[in-house]
């Protein structure tokens, strides 16, 4: 007689869980993967990670040899934590890049407004220099 074992895990972020399971150190084969359910095979055992509010729940039938599953889960958890750190770095870098792009867009718009208004006022752009992200405009009007 067999039953289903359900084991709570600290694995929470779907993307990081899948990436962790794809690492060679996870020693498993990924099957069908959705946010709600991740199918995998470890050591010949079919298992599922099922999404729950506090973290994925590992489900497997207890008629298999369960030896090594806690150790395996611990390894997956370490791989998962590494993926979380990488993801956080990636998000921070993307945010930094987004802010830089927004600043560059703002500077370009400011420059356009200044040069346009200067022309209306009778000034011409005599020099333009850019250094370290700053822009210097020299506007001249001869009378």
């Amino acid at each position, binding site marked *: 007689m067999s039953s289903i074992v359900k084991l709570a895990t600290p694995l929470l972020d779907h993307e990081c869980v899948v990436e962790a399971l794809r690492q060679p150190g996870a020693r498993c084969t990924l099957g069908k993967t959705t946010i709600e359910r991740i199918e995998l095979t470890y050591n010949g055992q079919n298992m599922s990670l099922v999404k729950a509010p506090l973290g994925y729940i590992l489900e497997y039938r207890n008629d298999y040899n369960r030896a090594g599953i806690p150790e395996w889960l611990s390894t997956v958890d370490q791989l998962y934590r590494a993926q979380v750190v990488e993801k956080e770095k990636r998000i921070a870098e993307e945010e930094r890049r987004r802010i830089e792009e927004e600043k560059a867009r703002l500077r370009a718009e400011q420059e356009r407004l200044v040069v346009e208004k200067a022309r209306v006022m009778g000034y011409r752009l005599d020099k333009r220099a850019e250094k370290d992200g700053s822009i210097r405009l020299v*506007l001249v009007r001869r009378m």
Partner: protein
Amino acid sequence: MNEEKIVVSIGEDGSIEAEAFGFEGPVCMEKLSTLLAELGPFTSERHKDDYFKGKRTTVQRQGEV
């Protein structure tokens, strides 16, 4: 030939500094205000000696009358 020059520096963070050359009196502030009107209010002003030249002239003229 007289020349009016305005140097505008747009900082990396979007801050703007503007400096006027070849003006006398408060007209430089009027020009800068007009030029930068759409970019928000000034947060600080620093007047050079030329800014006060026009004012002194005006005061002197009033004293002469």
